């Protein structure tokens, strides 16, 4: 259990959180029309007569959008409803030309599922925790409004109107901002593995409606508020913290929380009430008469299941079973691109543990310095496997490997070629190493005395000096053995 609480004047308050995440489905065309979905096009160029709600136009669902929602449902081990239906959610707004959004209220495509957020002691999540997911339904996105382009007018761009969204509705199972943050990150990771949403929160591909209420531990749920369209993990966490504190302050000063929709203002880091009309939520849902029920057969579902990749939890378990540390397994599985790159490295013959250490330290370090993503890494998995192979078979030491890697980044050449050209091959020539050891010990007679007098930490110093004298090319194991003999 999370022990996150809000400390009020009357004691500690528990926070209850549920999230509705809107994830844009990755598809070429829109949910019910053939217009394109690409981000950033000229205004109103990706709008069909269907999306503009011209009279007489009929919606026809895009098979790929349905398929991606089903695959997402399978990835959270949810029940898939072979019979679902579209409903109209009626309201008037300038970004909604139809006057209704086609959604699924009564019979969603995907039913009950769950995902697991990993234990994170530092974030106050002591154990793995399962977060329930109530449903996923498919619906249309609305258009975009711009208010700052004209003194008296708002501008409407319908490019986004009709793009397919999955609304992923969690159970009110989260109890702290950290848990909610972990949930969004895990959900984003799963969506990106599945390929059903690019998870790009900056471009609005994923946004969350954040439901927050507070209660004294053990009490019934309190009244919740819903903060709409929060578009980053950090903001989700900030909304929860701010809103929980506001509610506690309100209740303790004698007020009551009103069930309402709120907006988050990132500049002020506060939420404020949307002054909506009281009947704004009277959506008068009814089955869309333009659309027959959506019926899926077993062949369709089988194909969806067969096309699912290995998912983050399974991948992490596999990495752990191969001896990779929990920390490295988390880092490597969080982003699908890193996991794919790492799997390619293993396939090219690299040893899991050494490869994991190298990727998380050397490669990520280099990419960070260069400001590049792993998807445009200057070194391919095959080239990296060659480098790691040279370390594994003793051709070069780990220290030299770092130099070789730098050269690979500079020149684009292969590891073996660089080792040959620069004469970096590691030597196990005991004669040469012994000669250098003798010189090092002679030059540091005082330290040899101290070492023999019990200051064993100096051993590392002798190793370092010998390696330096050998220009890093001595086999460290041989150096260790010979030094022990010489000092013993």
């Amino acid at each position, binding site marked *: 259990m999370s022990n996150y609480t809000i400390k009020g004047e009357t004691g500690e308050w528990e926070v209850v959180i549920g999230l509705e995440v809107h994830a844009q489905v990755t598809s070429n065309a829109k949910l019910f029309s053939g217009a394109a979905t690409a981000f950033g096009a000229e205004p109103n160029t990706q709008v069909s*007569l269907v999306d503009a709600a011209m009279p007489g136009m009929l919606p026809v669902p895009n098979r790929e959008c349905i398929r991606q929602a089903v695959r997402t449902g399978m990835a959270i081990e949810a029940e898939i409803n072979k019979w679902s239906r579209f409903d109209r959610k009626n309201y008037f707004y300038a970004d909604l030309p139809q006057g209704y959004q086609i959604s699924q209220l009564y019979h969603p495509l995907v039913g009950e599922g769950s995902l697991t957020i990993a234990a994170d002691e530092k974030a106050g999540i002591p154990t793995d925790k399962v977060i329930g997911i109530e449903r996923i339904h498919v619906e249309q996105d609305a258009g975009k*409004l711009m*208010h700052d382009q004209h003194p008296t007018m708002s501008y409407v761009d319908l490019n986004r109107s009709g793009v397919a969204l999955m609304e992923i509705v969690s159970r009110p199972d989260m109890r702290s901002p950290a848990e909610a943050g972990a949930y969004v990150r895990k959900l984003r990771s799963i969506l990106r593995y599945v390929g059903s949403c690019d998870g790009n929160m900056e471009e609005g591909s994923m946004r969350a409606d954040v439901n927050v209420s507070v209660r004294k531990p053990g009490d019934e749920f309190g009244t919740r508020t819903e903060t709409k369209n929060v578009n980053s993990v950090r903001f989700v966490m900030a909304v929860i913290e701010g809103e929980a504190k506001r509610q506690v302050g309100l209740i303790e000063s004698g007020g009551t929380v009103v069930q309402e929709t709120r907006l988050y203002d990132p500049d002020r880091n506060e939420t404020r009430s949307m002054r909506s009309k009281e009947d704004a939520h009277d959506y008068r849902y009814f089955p869309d008469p333009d659309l027959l029920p959506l019926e899926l057969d077993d062949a369709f579902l089988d194909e969806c299941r067969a096309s699912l990749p290995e998912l983050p939890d399974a991948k992490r378990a596999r990495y752990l079973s191969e001896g990779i540390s929990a920390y490295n397994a988390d880092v490597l599985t969080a982003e699908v691109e890193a996991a794919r790159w790492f799997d390619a490295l293993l396939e090219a013959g690299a040893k899991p543990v050494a490869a994991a250490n190298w990727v998380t330290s050397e490669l990520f370090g280099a990419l960070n310095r260069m400001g590049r993503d792993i998807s445009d890494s200057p070194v391919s998995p095959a080239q990296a496997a060659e480098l790691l192979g040279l370390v594994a078979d003793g051709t070069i030491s780990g220290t030299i490997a770092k130099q070789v890697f730098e050269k690979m980044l500079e020149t684009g050449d292969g590891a073996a070629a660089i080792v040959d050209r620069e004469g970096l091959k590691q030597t196990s020539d005991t004669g040469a190493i012994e000669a250098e050891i003798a010189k090092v010990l002679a030059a540091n007679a005082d330290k040899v005395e101290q070492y023999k007098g019990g200051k064993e930490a100096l051993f590392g110093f002798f190793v370092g000096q010998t390696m330096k004298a050998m220009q890093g090319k001595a086999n460290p194991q041989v150096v260790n053995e010979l030094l022990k003999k010489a000092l013993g």
Partner: protein
Amino acid sequence: MAIDQATVRKIASLARIAISDAEAAAMEGELNGILGWVEQLGEVDVTGVEPMTAVIPNKLRLRDDVIDADPMTGGNRRDDILANAPAPQHGFFGVPKVIE
């Protein structure tokens, strides 16, 4: 099920239709008449009968995920889309400012 004038006014307001009191009174009678007529369906015993979603055997068709395959349901027709707009602005629809 019967509706009163307050409900009529609420439905009208949700549908953004302005109606006078006289119209609301007339509408109350008309809507109750329609509802009463439809409610006759409740007299039929449908125990064990599956709800019907279409009067002819018909399956929902799905489209392939192809952009602009059919010009009638594809994009790239901004001039058509904006042709009836009262105040188009630089490729956008211009509408009275709607911001809370």
